[in-house]
């Protein structure tokens, strides 16, 4: 235990305060938007890196807001995992913002400050979620992130408001279920502090009340993370959202919710209760995850639009992590947590690539992807790296988390889950090579598309996306390789958080 400092509060406060300042100053002049968005995120990223370094060196600590001691006061927990999540959130948000700024300028001229107000509050909310050690605060923060998300999605064009409304309904059901679960738990334990609750739950008889509490809380979170078949809201919401918002949602929202599920299982209900006293439920969830992976992958295969395809892959990946964690062994849990990080980065890479492509082609329907290799070589190269990572080709990071998940499945004897993971990898390979084939080996204007193109089509000049979209994409693609080769240290940091008995 190291002595607490306030650093993590500053990390959290920076985007929050900036959001309100931006809302006021942004009205006066658009010049404020960029510094007030990037500034706090740079600060948060640097701060969370420092915090992570400290936590890894000196161990985690818990922090009491306003000096009210737990279990009554509000407690924040800074352990290696939450510090890593902070780095992930701030890093991804920062990277995505470079590409988001030009997109917002393009899609929402005049209301940039409004967009980024919500955007920054969302980031602050996500950071709060990973830090909180209080079950009720978790609900409030969950709703803060959701409400900002609803707003951001509704800013999209066309059907986006409808998608947003569907998300409001589904998201509210999820949040209410979670609240209900916590309500039962509060009635049982009289506490809302996670550690306190966990201590009391150990002494409680295992009855239907506890099971109800658990079921509501977990199903609530499943709705929020779009665990198949509770995923219905996600594809529309994420693919119709403004491009800039999608860049932030896709990598972070589902992943943070999975982190919350892990927190609730590890720190509230305890793995003994969740996994070992109910082996049938445990293996049932793994099977459900296997089915989720297979179904979501198959649905992804049917899509004819790049971004929609990616959203279904996102849902399949949720199955990876839920199933991996419920394997309930060290390898599986490590794989699930590692996959949170890896999936976040590779999703960011693919969405950045999609955004870069859309900036040139306008639409992401497969027909528009032909021959892109000639016109956007750098974008497509980065896209290919991201695709390989999703498929799980070494040495990209996606391979290594899949490795741990597969190994966990082998150890747990969950052959169905193993098969589902392999199936999904193969389906991903088919999907992405279909695109790579279109982009690399099909010339635009070839054969049946001949009519409406110019004659010199085969020497189409290189027309890359603008630098603010390209640079973060290249950085993210490189990060996929770096993270992959640095899996060793990341895993040892993750292992610090896992229960000792594993």
């Amino acid at each position: 235990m190291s002595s607490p400092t306030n650093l993590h509060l500053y990390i959290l406060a920076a985007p929050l305060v900036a959001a309100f300042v931006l809302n006021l100053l942004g009205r006066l002049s658009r010049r404020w938007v960029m510094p007030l968005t990037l500034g706090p995120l740079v600060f948060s990223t640097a701060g969370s890196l420092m915090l992570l370094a400290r936590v890894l060196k000196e161990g985690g600590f818990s922090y009491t807001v306003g000096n009210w001691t737990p279990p009554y006061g509000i407690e924040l927990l800074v352990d290696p995992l939450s510090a890593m999540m902070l780095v992930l959130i701030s890093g991804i948000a920062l990277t995505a913002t470079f590409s988001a700024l030009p997109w917002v300028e393009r899609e929402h001229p005049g209301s940039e400050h409004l967009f980024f107000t919500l955007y920054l509050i969302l980031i602050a909310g996500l950071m709060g979620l990973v830090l909180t050690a209080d079950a009720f605060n978790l609900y409030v923060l969950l709703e803060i992130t959701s409400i900002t998300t609803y707003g951001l999605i509704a800013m999209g064009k066309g059907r986006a408001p409808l998608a947003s409304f569907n998300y409001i309904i589904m998201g509210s059901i999820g949040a209410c279920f979670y609240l209900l679960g916590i309500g039962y738990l509060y009635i049982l334990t009289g506490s809302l502090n996670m550690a306190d609750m966990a201590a009391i739950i150990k002494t409680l008889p295992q009855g239907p009340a506890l099971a109800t509490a658990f079921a509501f809380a977990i199903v609530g979170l499943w709705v929020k993370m779009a665990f198949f078949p509770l995923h219905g809201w996600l594809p529309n919401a994420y693919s119709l959202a403004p491009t800039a918002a999608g860049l932030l949602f896709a990598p972070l929202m589902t992943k943070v919710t999975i982190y919350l599920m892990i927190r609730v299982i590890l720190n509230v209900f305890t793995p003994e209760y969740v996994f070992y006293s109910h082996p049938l439920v445990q293996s049932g969830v793994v099977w459900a995850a296997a089915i989720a992976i297979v179904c979501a992958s198959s649905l992804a295969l049917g899509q004819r639009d790049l971004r929609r395809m990616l959203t279904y892959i996102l849902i399949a990946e949720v199955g990876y992590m839920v199933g991996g964690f419920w394997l309930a062994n060290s390898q599986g849990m490590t794989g699930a947590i590692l996959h949170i990080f890896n999936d976040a980065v590779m999703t960011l890479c693919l969405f950045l690539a999609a955004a870069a492509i859309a900036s040139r082609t306008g639409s992401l329907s497969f027909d528009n992807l032909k021959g892109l290799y000639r016109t956007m070589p750098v974008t497509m190269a980065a896209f290919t790296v991201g695709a390989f990572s999703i498929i799980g080709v070494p040495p990209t990071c996606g391979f290594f988390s899949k490795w741990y998940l597969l190994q966990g499945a082998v150890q747990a004897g969950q052959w169905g889950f193993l098969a589902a993971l392999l199936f999904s990898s193969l389906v991903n390979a088919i999907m992405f090579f279909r695109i790579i084939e279109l982009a690399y080996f099909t010339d635009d204007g070839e054969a049946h598309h001949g009519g409406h193109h110019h004659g010199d089509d085969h020497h189409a000049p290189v027309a890359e996306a603008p630098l603010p979209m390209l640079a973060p994409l290249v950085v993210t693609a490189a990060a996929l390789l770096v993270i992959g080769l640095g899996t060793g240290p990341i895993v040892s940091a993750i292992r610090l958080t896992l229960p000792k008995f594993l």
Partner: protein
Amino acid sequence: MTGLTAEIVAKYNYWLYVILMMVGLYAMIGKKNLVKKLLGMNIFQTAIILLYVSSGVKRGAGIPIVDKYKALAQGVDPTLVVNPLPHVLMLTAIVVSVSVTGVALAVLLRIYREYGTLEEDEILEKIGK
């Protein structure tokens, strides 16, 4: 039968909240009108608020407002006051619920401007065209 009745009567607050919740859930999923869906959501949230609040109640206890000096001198007998914490929590939950409703109404306005209706099937029909 009498056993069941007794059970229901003894824990009537739970049964009430369950009924309310089901009404809300039905409206959210079953109704085609988007405003009705939203109303269902509010009923759903209210049900949960009721559950929390009713969990703080004690038979024969009063409101948790006590004389400061008396309390400091003699302490507070917990059986004489209801548990105030759930109420406080629900204040926050109400704020959340109001914000969600606000956002949802704003979104509904946009939908109405776009499609001129709030019936889900009519909207889908218009999109389909």
